[in-house]
């Protein structure tokens, strides 16, 4: 292996990359846009339920029991009229998610053991859980104002949460998008590498290189270094710019390196087709779309099918999330990274094999 030759090919490829305006703009555009989008996204989740209440003739009711001012997870806002309450719920004013209209004589009816009619206002798109929450709130309210037991005995339940308990601690949009942005940057560099290789094949410049002392192995090594270097540097830059490299830095760098090697394998495969730009886009997307699934699934926690775990990039997404959100140590993500490493070897080997065969037949 002649490192002078490998270095010359790398330098040449980087020069050609820098002169391809499309890929340079895509890289710069991607970095700027993804970083900007990240910082615009909310960094936390407001889980407080804002409940509107109209209690005719019961001005002091809201000072009682569970409704005496804002509590963790619940904020009660008083309204002067049923119409105002209804309008606020419909318009979502001040984040009002639902409204309770308590009839006049509510307290007396409760204390007398009657069942007063309570009107609940909900938006059409309110989740079913909100109805249950309001039901519970009404029972608690009845207990507070009348000192009577809730009309319905709640079953005794024990919740068992598997994995990290996200109750009251949901992933913010920044957390959800972080792995996706990293993967999108890797994807852009996949296109760039595939384009470089395809141009080399279609222009048959590789043939000119391989009748010099340069060997196929040196040519392939240079391509792997260029592809991995471009993808890795861009991904590290992105994570740095979005402030994700503060904890578990080495683990994150290892994850990004594995991700870069993985997409480099894809770039080798797509580039081996030697097609024009549209052909490269087609072949690259054919591989990239399935690989993007875990990153997209990360946007909707709990919604992904079980097979997503088997995707080559799942471990990458899981590692980025675990390290950046939960500060997971290396040993906690070693298994995921091990799976990614195995996929890396397989995809990279396939890419090298296909490109080697392609070059041999030119």
């Amino acid at each position, binding site marked *: 292996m002649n490192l002078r030759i490998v270095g010359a090919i790398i330098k*040449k490829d980087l020069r050609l990359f820098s*002169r391809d305006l499309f890929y340079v703009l895509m890289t710069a555009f991607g970095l700027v846009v993804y970083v900007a989008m990240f910082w615009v996204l909310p960094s936390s989740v407001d889980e407080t339920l804002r409940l509107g209440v109209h209690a005719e003739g019961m001005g002091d009711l809201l000072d009682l029991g569970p409704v005496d001012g804002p509590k963790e997870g619940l904020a009660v806002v008083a309204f002067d009229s049923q119409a105002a309450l209804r309008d606020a719920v419909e318009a979502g004013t001040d984040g009002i998610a639902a409204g309770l209209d308590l009839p006049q004589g509510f307290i007396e009816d409760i204390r007398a053991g009657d069942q007063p009619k309570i009107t609940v206002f909900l938006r059409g798109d309110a989740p079913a859980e909100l109805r249950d929450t309001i039901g519970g709130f009404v029972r608690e309210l009845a207990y507070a104002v009348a000192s009577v037991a809730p009309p319905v005995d709640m079953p005794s339940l024990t919740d068992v949460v598997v994995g990290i308990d996200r109750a009251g601690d949901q992933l913010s949009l920044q957390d959800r998008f972080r792995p996706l942005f990293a993967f999108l940057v890797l994807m852009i560099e996949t296109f760039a590498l595939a384009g470089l290789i395809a141009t080399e094949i279609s222009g*048959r410049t590789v043939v*000119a*290189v391989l009748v*010099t*002392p340069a060997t196929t192995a040196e040519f392939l090594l240079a391509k792997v270094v260029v592809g991995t270097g471009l993808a890795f540097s861009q991904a590290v830059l992105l994570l740095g710019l979005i402030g994700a490299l503060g904890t578990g830095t080495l683990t994150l760098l290892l994850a990004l390196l594995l991700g870069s090697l993985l997409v480099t394998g894809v770039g080798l495969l797509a580039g081996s087709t030697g097609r024009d730009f549209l052909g490269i886009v087609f072949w690259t997307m054919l591989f990239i779309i399935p690989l993007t699934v875990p990153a997209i699934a990360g946007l909707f926690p709990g919604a992904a099918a079980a097979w997503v775990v088997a995707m080559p990039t799942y471990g990458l997404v899981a590692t980025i999330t675990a390290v950046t959100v939960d500060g997971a140590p290396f040993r906690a993500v070693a298994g995921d990274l091990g799976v990614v490493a195995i996929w890396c070897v397989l995809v990279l080997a396939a890419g090298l094999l296909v490109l080697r065969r392609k070059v041999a037949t030119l």
Partner: protein
Amino acid sequence: MDQASIQAVGLSYAYGDTLAVDDISFGVAAGEVLGFLGPNGAGKSTTIRMLTGQLSPHRGSIRILGMDMPGDRTAIQGRIGVCFEEKNLYLEMTAHENLAFFATLFGVTVDVDALLERVGLRERGRDRVSSFSKGMRQRLMITRALINTPDVLFLDEPTDGLDPVSARGIRDLIRAEADRGAAVLLTTHDMHEADELSDRVAFIDDGRVIALDAPEELKLAHGQRSMRVRRRVGGLVEEEVIELDGASAADQVRAAVAKEGLLTVHTEEATLEDIFVQLAGRGLSG
């Protein structure tokens, strides 16, 4: 041919069931230009690909500069220069960058500007190759093949696309390389170029060498020479063709030029194309 720079013995190569090169043997000495002539698909390119290490022969052996190909591929490739028929240059790099890159691959230090000067491209050295005309790209291809001062040169249609003046310059350059001591294997469709440049020519057809000799010897062995005599008889121009290879040719010539009204005398000899047609039964463009 013990001292041949290129020595091919019994070379064969097949693409699947199609035999592209069938038991070809030839040699090229240092300082010699061997013209490699044949129609498309005759096996010329496959032979050159084997000689330059792009393909491994299925049968036979190759020695370049006393080394075994493909066994000593890397060492051999450091001492050969190849000019391909396709213009496989890096279009988004300048001419200077293209040459500097290949110089690095060969591990040589060269005066790139001086090389560009040799082919009249110095002024355009800092321009991207994508802005070059076909002829300029061809001249750059030749220059690239010479970057390592090769001992063996493989040139595939080196004057293709060049204007007559540029083509003349490239032919002079090829001759100069041979005079320097380089062995040159030249593939061309231009019969005049092959005739002018080649010390010997090899006719390739259906993967086999059907003739291999100096152009003059081939013409003597296979071509027909003739003399065309024109004279005015009365008010008309009369033409007589005398085959010079016939037994009575001398008497016929003397008689023809002795007659009154002689206008012109032209001698004609067979071209390499004529000889190829005679030997292969088809033309070089077929």
